[in-house]
């Protein structure tokens, strides 16, 4: 999949009409200077030749250098990737912390006011655009109340408290959608399991409510884990918008800047890393599925 993505991406970036040479060399660059720039970087070669040269250099010298800053792209990624990964991980944890209990509560109080309230809130959460929600959260919690900083991620060196505080709003801006979506999924899965014969049997045999609840949750988890795993991958995509709103110097900001500046090697590297994240998160979700669902191990 990575090969397909990288090849398609490679072709797409080179379809843009503006040469990176114009951006790097500036407005007054002559045709000869632009030609020389493109020749130096192999941009005047055929697309397959450029692509194979790029693939060949990966194991030797990594992603190479940025056309614009001249910095090593590997270093750029080392700076921005952890920021995005941390944001997505915190978002994911917030999602789990919200979606699982809310889904459970809604299922256990089916058709009573807590269930109605949670369903209404989850419907709102999946309906509200993340960009708008982020702006509202900033307005209320950062501007009005001054509880958290409105932009950026406070470095850990300034204390974990401050660091965590700066992560709350961006993470929440993404997580609320997934809490809404996954709590509904959790609710449906739990309700389905609660209707199974073995649950009634367990109750009638006098098993403790805690033990029954464990069985219920365990059997309701497989569909939840599958979707949650995919959501983890999608969260990298969401981060593009949210990092912009909160001015977070993560992978997505680096990607947007690279797109604006036609920094081909940076665009390729960033998208490839995001794609890899998506693949890995799906793989991990599959493995967890197999762990909690013995039937899949033999499938």
């Amino acid at each position, binding site marked *: 999949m990575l090969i397909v993505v990288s090849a398609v991406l490679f072709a797409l970036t080179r379809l843009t*009409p503006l040469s990176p040479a114009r951006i790097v060399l*500036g407005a007054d660059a002559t045709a000869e200077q632009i030609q020389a720039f493109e020749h130096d970087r192999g941009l005047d070669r055929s697309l397959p030749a450029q692509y194979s040269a790029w693939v060949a250099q990966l194991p030797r010298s990594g992603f190479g250098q940025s056309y614009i800053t001249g910095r090593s792209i590997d270093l750029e990624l080392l*700076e*921005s990737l952890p920021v995005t990964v941390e944001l997505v991980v915190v978002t994911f944890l917030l999602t789990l912390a919200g979606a699982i209990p809310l889904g459970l509560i809604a299922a256990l109080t089916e058709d009573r006011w807590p269930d109605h309230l949670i369903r209404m809130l989850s419907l709102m959460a999946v309906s509200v655009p993340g960009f708008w929600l982020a702006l509202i959260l900033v307005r209320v919690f950062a501007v009005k109340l001054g509880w958290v900083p409105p932009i950026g991620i406070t470095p850990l060196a300034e204390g974990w*408290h401050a660091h965590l505080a700066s992560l709350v709003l961006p993470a929440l801006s993404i997580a609320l959608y997934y809490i809404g979506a996954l709590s509904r999924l959790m609710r449906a899965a739990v309700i389905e399991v609660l209707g199974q014969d073995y649950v009634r049997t367990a109750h009638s045999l006098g098993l403790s409510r805690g033990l029954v609840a464990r069985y219920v949750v365990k059997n309701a988890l497989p569909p939840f884990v599958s979707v949650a795993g995919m959501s983890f991958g999608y969260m990298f995509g969401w981060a593009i918008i949210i990092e912009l709103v909160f*001015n977070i110097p993560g992978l997505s900001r*680096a990607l947007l800047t690279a797109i604006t*500046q036609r920094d081909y090697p940076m665009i390729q590297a960033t998208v490839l890393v995001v794609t890899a994240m998506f693949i890995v998160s799906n793989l991990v979700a599959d493995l967890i599925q197999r762990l909690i669902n013995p039937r899949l191990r033999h499938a």
Partner: protein
Amino acid sequence: MASVSLNRRVFLQGGAVTIGGLGGSFAARAADERSLVVAIPSNPSTFDPINQGNHDAMVVNQLIFENLIEIDGEGRRRPMLAKAMPTISADRTEYVFELRDDVTFQNGQPFTAEDVKYSYDYMLDPTHKALRRSVWTNIESVDVLDRYKVRFKLKTPFRPFLDYMTKYMGIFPAGSREKYGNEVFQQKPEGLGTGPGIFVSARSNDVVEFRRNPNYWRKDSIAWDRLRVRIVSEEAARIAALLSKSVHIIGAPPVRDYVRLRQARAQGITGGSRPALGSLMLMIHNTRKPPFDDPNFRKAVSLATDRKTIAEKIFNGLVEPSAVPAPASAWWYNAKAAEGLAFNLDQAKAYLAKSRYASGAEFELLYSSQGYLLDVGDAALFIQASLARLGIKVKLQPLETGQLIEQVFAGNQASVLMAVIGPSDPTFIIQGIYTPNQVMTRSSGYSSERLNTLLADSFRVDDEPSLGPILADMQAILAEDSPSTWIGAIHSFNLWRTNVQGFEPNTGITLRLTDVAPTDAR
């Protein structure tokens, strides 16, 4: 089925306490901050002063690297690393500068005439590909006369030379390129300039941090110990940062927020604006392409453009309407030429009737979809509606800035609406668009022998009585031929917290931060 009892009050209180608790440390930390923090929209692609193209990102270069002269807040030239303004030869081709003898680079190296020669020679060498080298190619030589005296010899008289010197250059130590390498200039130029800020660190798309230069030659002009330039590309985020006291000053605020917040001192915010000299908003028509190949059509478009409404209603007074390439408040403004193109629909219809496109015309108007300083999208829409009243159909074509510039440089566009930012010289834009071999010449396809002669004449003088009539004649030619539709002069405008002293918008767009004192800093 088990039932769960929820206590809503406890649930909500718990959430609030969690978020509030996390935020407590942030509020305390912000109060302890001892630095000046500013936010600009653009990520500097380099810290090298000879390659920085973006005007708001120039703030980082100008804190490190200085020039022989500078432009003050009012737009007047004044000495910087030079002791006084230069002595200029009678034929205006030789500029001799006496340099200050009390300046050292941040790395301790004394500043001398050798450094000036070295910096300019380096920049002029075509192999080094300096971004604005083309504006300097009129320099024949830079000669060291003694340790603190340097002479610039020009090939021909060129008045804008001094204005360009204030913006598109920076002096670095002799031998520094060989010693440190270009990568250091590009990424971490610690100790390489004479400026007030010593580079400390930078994170791409995030922040550039400076510490005060303790040996700065203007002893009492730095009122901060630390300065952080935050890169905040999203305009709503810049406003939020200012409102929440995370930054003291912001560059390029959105127009609507600027107007709303400027008066809101109760929120601890104020603002100000002043004309950005040399910066204009205009529609550059391609006179080689129909329908702009007909001067009557061009005049019809200009006369049908209600600049006053655009300036007041769309840009809230942050554009000073003008039908000629000069602000109405400037001493070189030709009111008569401007009057001839003032909004007049009847006259516009008459000119259209005289044109080859009397039965109707259609053209594509390009503009940037990414507002920088001023978002021209609404103005483009207004122009479309205005010209529809004449029967002229305008197809609006928003483009990403890079694509737009490429189209304009290649001269592919029929017309483009853009704000051009330049140095304070009044002929910068005229020269760039209408004279041969300039980067944007193809965008207009227009040339005029008379205009070129006047431009050359203007380069030989620098005093108002001599320059005024020449600039007035140039405006008259451009009004008569109307190769572009001028909308007006744009303003430089900023918002800042009321506890900031000594800050004012800079006529050159780039933030000036040397004399700025945040009163909450200790």
